[in-house]
């Protein structure tokens, strides 16, 4: 997946972040899906948008694309105020919300032609470019109804790219993609961000977000619980994970406690311990355990996004 941008559009529109949402509230019946959500996505980044099921990610995406109304709060897209029913700000936004949607009886190319007739008309030749970018040129004449989930997902990404948007909103874009497709997609999104585009990606594949996002926002119960640069967030909540044989767990905890390191079993499986210390202390932990004749089977330095995510969203 490679697509040279038509324009360096990171600065498209007035100054300001790519997305600024303030106090978004949305209720479905008695359930409050968004409860005063604040979100600010800087331009030119791949921005991870994380949260457990039902946290409000898709509701946020729907509000940002004008599909549903917010009960309260305000939204700016690319520096322009955006309200429900506004059209123009969306001309610079490409979106893939939930599952991709197409006419199953039309070919990929015809689906893109139909969609290209809506909103702002893309430049001539753009359809071929996006088909090529997502690797569907060879199947462009086939009916979409015959496509696999992964191919539909690729086509959904092609639709999102159709207008060479300055802002991409991608809801679970890796759904159905094979490993090679996931790598290609990641490279394409990073290339788009390098060209000044902004990419907001929601995904349940946290390792994927960790591999490509510069910044992340984590939401739970319709509220923002943490946002910022991913590297800083992870280093601030560093941890070292150690795996010993299960019969050595109690001894390992005692040894580490003697070294001033509080360790406890974690949820990764039998024998795994987690010590909430900066990753730089992993050699000390390793040395202490080996000197105490506790065999270390595995040692993972640094924190991971999964641990951070769970610590922020559980409970």
């Amino acid at each position, binding site marked *: 997946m490679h697509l040279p941008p038509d324009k360096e559009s990171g600065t498209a529109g007035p100054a300001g972040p790519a997305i600024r949402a303030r106090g978004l509230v949305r209720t479905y019946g008695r359930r409050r899906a968004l409860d005063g959500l604040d979100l600010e996505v800087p331009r030119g980044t791949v921005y991870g948008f994380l949260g457990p099921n039902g946290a409000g990610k898709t509701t946020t995406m729907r509000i940002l694309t*004008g599909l*549903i109304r917010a009960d309260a709060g305000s939204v700016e897209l690319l520096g322009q105020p955006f309200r429900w029913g506004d059209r123009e700000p969306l001309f610079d936004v490409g979106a893939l919300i939930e599952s991709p949607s197409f*006419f199953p009886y*039309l070919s990929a190319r015809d689906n893109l032609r139909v*969609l290209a*007739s809506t909103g702002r008309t893309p430049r001539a030749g753009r359809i071929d470019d996006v088909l090529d970018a997502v690797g569907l040129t060879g199947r462009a004449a086939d009916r979409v109804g015959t496509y696999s989930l992964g191919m539909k997902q690729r086509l959904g990404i092609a639709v999102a790219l159709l207008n060479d948007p300055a802002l991409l909103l991608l809801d679970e874009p890796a759904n159905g993609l094979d490993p090679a497709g996931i790598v290609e997609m990641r490279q394409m999104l990073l290339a788009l961000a390098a060209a000044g585009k902004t990419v907001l990606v929601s995904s349940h594949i946290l390792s994927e977000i960790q591999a490509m996002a510069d910044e992340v926002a984590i939401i739970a119960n319709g509220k923002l619980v943490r946002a910022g640069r991913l590297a800083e967030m992870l280093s601030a909540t560093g941890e070292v994970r150690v795996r010993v044989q299960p019969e050595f767990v109690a001894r390992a905890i005692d040894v580490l406690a003697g070294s001033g390191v509080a360790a406890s079993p974690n949820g990764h499986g039998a024998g795994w311990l987690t010590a909430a210390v900066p990753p730089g202390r992993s050699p000390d932990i390793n040395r202490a355990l080996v000197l105490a004749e506790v065999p270390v089977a595995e040692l993972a330095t640094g924190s991971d996004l999964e641990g951070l995510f769970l610590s922020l969203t559980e409970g």
Partner: protein
Amino acid sequence: MALVRGALRKVILRPATRNTLLVLVALIALVYLGFAVAIRAMPPGEGGDPIGTLFGFPTAYGTLATLLLTIGGFAAAAWAGAIAAGEWSWNTFRSAVARGESRPRYVLATLVATVLVAFVGWLVLLAVGLFGTIAGGMITGGPVGDPGSAVDRLPGLALAGWWAVSMEAAIGYGVAFVARSQVAGIAALVAIYFAEQFGSVIIPADVLRFAPIIAANSLVGEWARATSPDVLVPLVATTAYVLLAAGAAALVARRSEIA
């Protein structure tokens, strides 16, 4: 225009468009062939009235138009309802809105494309029906009159029939879009049809002539049968129903949230 062109692409290439037309062509051909064969099998002298009504020009124009409108109208409502409901079930309406397209514009462009394609379908059915009439007349061997005797009515009949079918398609489309269900679209037209039939018992004719299907039949019937057709009332009534269906779909589209 680009929006209507895009809508035409999705309507024309839809398998239901081709299949609906093929079924109707087969049905019309079968009706005329069946009647022709049945009349030929009757003893001499007994098939007179059916021959005149079905195969005798210029009366046959009126019979053909009524037959096409009755069968074609319900088919058009079901077809247009499928087009409208498909926008919801396939979430393609959502894709267009997320690209910044105006909801009402999108819905109306699709209806315009539906009505334009219906015109082509109506012309095809009219041609098949005329061929069936002439061929059926030849099979029966009875006097069929001169097909050219009222040929000057054909352009008006083509336009009036198209508009009448378009009205029924628009009702199917509008109801299906509002209800997000193809079944609702066809059910609405069937309900109107029965309501008009039963309503004719208690509602005065000068009121009932404004009813949708009666107005559509009247519009076509005037062009088919009258030498100087009076189409003002049925034309205004059918146009009003087209606008009403389009307006309802556009209004609902404008206010709809899309999950």
